[in-house]
Each structure stands twice: as C-alpha cells, then as structure tokens.
C-alpha cells in the first residue's frame, strides 16, 4: 500500500494499491490547518489506506 502525492509516478513504477496524499513535503499533513484538524486529515488518509488493504485489486488501483 503506497501513500504518495504524485500518484502518476506510483502508477508508472508499479505500486498496486495507491492512496493519494496531500503534498510532497507533508504527504499526511497540512501545516496551514489547526493541529486537531490536521490530525483528522491524516487519520482519514490512513483509514483510506487501511481500507484499501482489505480490498482485492487486479493490477493497480488508486483509492481516491
């Protein structure tokens, strides 16, 4: 399971389960948000990633 911002690279290099992230210097954060809000954003991405791990994929899939 690959969490990354630049999903096209992830697709090119061959990751199977891909979850989009926020930005390159802070894939799982957003410094302009309040701490609590930022953690909620992070949690959402991680939950999305965990859910993706429970789903079978054929080849490659981006879990938007």
């Amino acid at each position, binding site marked *: 399971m690959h969490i990354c*911002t*630049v*999903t*096209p*690279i992830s697709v*090119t*290099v061959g990751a199977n389960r891909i979850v*989009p992230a*926020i*930005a*390159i*210097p802070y894939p799982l954060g957003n410094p302009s948000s309040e701490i609590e809000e930022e953690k909620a954003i992070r949690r959402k991405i991680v939950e999305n990633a965990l859910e993706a791990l429970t789903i079978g994929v054929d080849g490659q899939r981006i879990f938007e």
Partner: protein
Amino acid sequence: MRLEMGYIYIKDIQFSGESKIEDGTLYVSEESAKAVALEDEKLKSVSFDIARPGESIRITPVKDVIEPRVKVEGRGGIFPGVISKIDTVGEGKTYALKGMAVVTAGKIVGFQEGIIDMTGPGADYTPFSKTLNLVMVCEAVDGIEPHEYEKAVRLAGLRVAVYIGELARTLTPDETKVYETCTLKEGIEKYPELPRVAYVQMLQSQGLLHDTYVYGVDAKRIVPTILNPTEIMDGAIISGNCVSACDKNPTYVHLNNPVVHDLFEQHGKTLNFVGQIITNENVYLAEKQRSSDWTAKLCKILDLDGVIISQEGFGNPDTDLIMNCKKIEAEGIKTVIITDEYAGRDGKSQSLADADAAADAVITGGNANQVVILPKLNKVIGTLDYVTKIAGASEETLRGDGSLEVELQVITGATNETGFNCLSAR
C-alpha cells in the same frame, strides 16, 4: 520585441580602492561592494575573494552564480521586481560582463549547496570553472530563520551583481548581438514556411532552496504564462535554488539560457521562434495537473509545430516533465525534452522516476550519480564543514588524503537540464 545585447569581455578581476572597469579588467572596491551586500540588516558580515580559472581553489557551499548586467536603453532595469522597479523588460539595449560571475557562498540551512572547483577533474564538469569569479561569503545575524537567511543571501548576490554591472554603463561593448522575435501575426506573414517553435521552461518550485522567481513572483504561485524570450536576458527569472547543485539553474543560466540562444540562432532560418512558455514544478498533484494542462493549452493557442521542454531538478519533477510532454504531444505538437539521469553509481538503474512512450526524443545532461574524485586543492573559499552533508555526498566523502569522493550531483551546474553543457550519457 528587439533587444540589443552588448558584450564586454572581462579578462581579470582585482581588488582596488575604487570600483571601475578599465581595459577589460574589473577593479572592485571591497569596501563599496561590502556596503552594497550589507544593506540588508539580516546579514552580519560578508567577505569577498577572487577565483580565477586554473587556480587551485574550491568554492563551497555555492548558492547562486550571477552574471553582472546593466540596462542602458529601454524599459525597466536588471532583475525587475526584485532589484529594479517592476517594469516589462526585454527590449532596448543591455550590456553584459562576459567571462566573469558573482558567486554567493556561505553557511546555509539544511542540505548544503554545490561545489565549484577552478582546476582538476571537478573543473571539467562545472561551467563556472571557466569564469573569473568574484565570490562573496555571507554570514547571517544570529537566530535568523532559514527562509530569511536564504532570501538575504539571494538578494545580496543580485545587488552586488547589479552594482558591478552598473560600472559598464558608459563603456563601449566589444561585441553586439541583436535578438528579435515577431508578434504572432508578423511571424506568420514573415515566415509562412517555417515551423513554429517555442521553448517550454519548467521552473523549480518545490520550496526552500528549490525556488525560482519571475519578476519577483514565487514561481510556485504562477500559472503557466508566455514570455518574450529576450525578457530573461534582463533578469526576468532568478534562482532561489541550489539543491541538488548539478541540475538547478543558477541565475547565470537563466540570463544565458542556452535553449533560448540556440533557438534564436535558428530563428528565421530553419524555424520561427515564437516565444517562451514558463511553467512550474509544484508539490501538489492537482497543481502539476493544472500546470501541464495549461502549458499544453498555451502551446495549442500559439499554433506551435514543435517545442523544446527543459526540466529543472529530478525526482517528482520527472512527472511534470512527462505530463508536459504527453499533453503537448497529444495536441499534435512535436516535443524534445531535456533532462538528466539518476542511474545509480554503476549506471545500471532506471534514470527517471516517470516514463511514457510519448517521450521519444530525449536529450540528457548525463548521470548525476557518477562518482568523481576531487583532489585536495590549495585553497577553500567558504567552508568544507558541510561537505559530507550536501546532496551527492556521504559520510565517506572526505578521504584521508583530503580529496573528496562525491557524485556529480554536488558540482554546480554539472548535469544542467537546459543543455548548458556538453556532458551527456548513453
């Protein structure tokens, strides 16, 4: 738009009581230059030094390299929106001091910048071993934030370059060259048979030490736009950008952008050089998509037949490069892309992070992972304190005999992706 470039060849630099240019020698008053650099209260001190081609000198950590210029006729001044007042530049008459550069160096935040060797194997790889370099080593006041320090050094270098350039205002150039492009309608009427070609320049815009400024605007905040190619010759684009040193464009490269110059060389002969499109390399995917969409759209609006796309940096910008290439080719416009490679020290890895079949015409600036041994040199301008931490170095970099084992990455301008050098790879 028509710009006349006057070239004044500098053959030596010397410190002197008074700053002036006489018979091809630049005399610099250290005191006056220091005063210009230290106008910014964020800088505590600056020291000047001279490095000449062939001397046993290593300059590091190098931040920016700048060619002094002065605008003698026409609108605006050098580095508009940054040093000079904002105005559209690129027409009239500009003088450049050829054969020399102002080099900024000094302790910098994070992962330190590049190396310029004036002699030895390292000198073969950096274009700035061939220039007479006026080096300024800057030190910040205590407790300053990295972003502020970066900015202070960047601006100090530009101010000093403008100060030096001003010394040429009343001189007669050794050589003059005219650069002129047509408006859209003129171009179509004048060169109906020639292919319409533009230059797509991708500007590094990833954040601290990876930024570029256009008329003073941080390039990460621009949407792709069109420049007249002569604008860059007056300093419309400047560098805030030096990690990794090998493939970031110092301001010197922007001023002398080789794609612009080589397209002008063919303009009116084999092609019609329509203009320059600038775009960025941002850290959000949506911005990458937007910028590449817009770049392709601008190419289409200009009714182009072909473009040359140059990248800056590596890693995720490889995706911006591939997106630009794919989307422009999809408009039926032929592309050639210029990049460099990270193929591993042994050259056996894949060179780019992204790839697409549309990218069938690639120019490479070489493999940045190639290892070179830089022998110990007699003098260091700056400091070797960070030499094991710069991008392209490692804990093993500093060897027992004082030589450095490094990747080409550390050498300023070594694998430049505007095609500034002859280095390539197969």
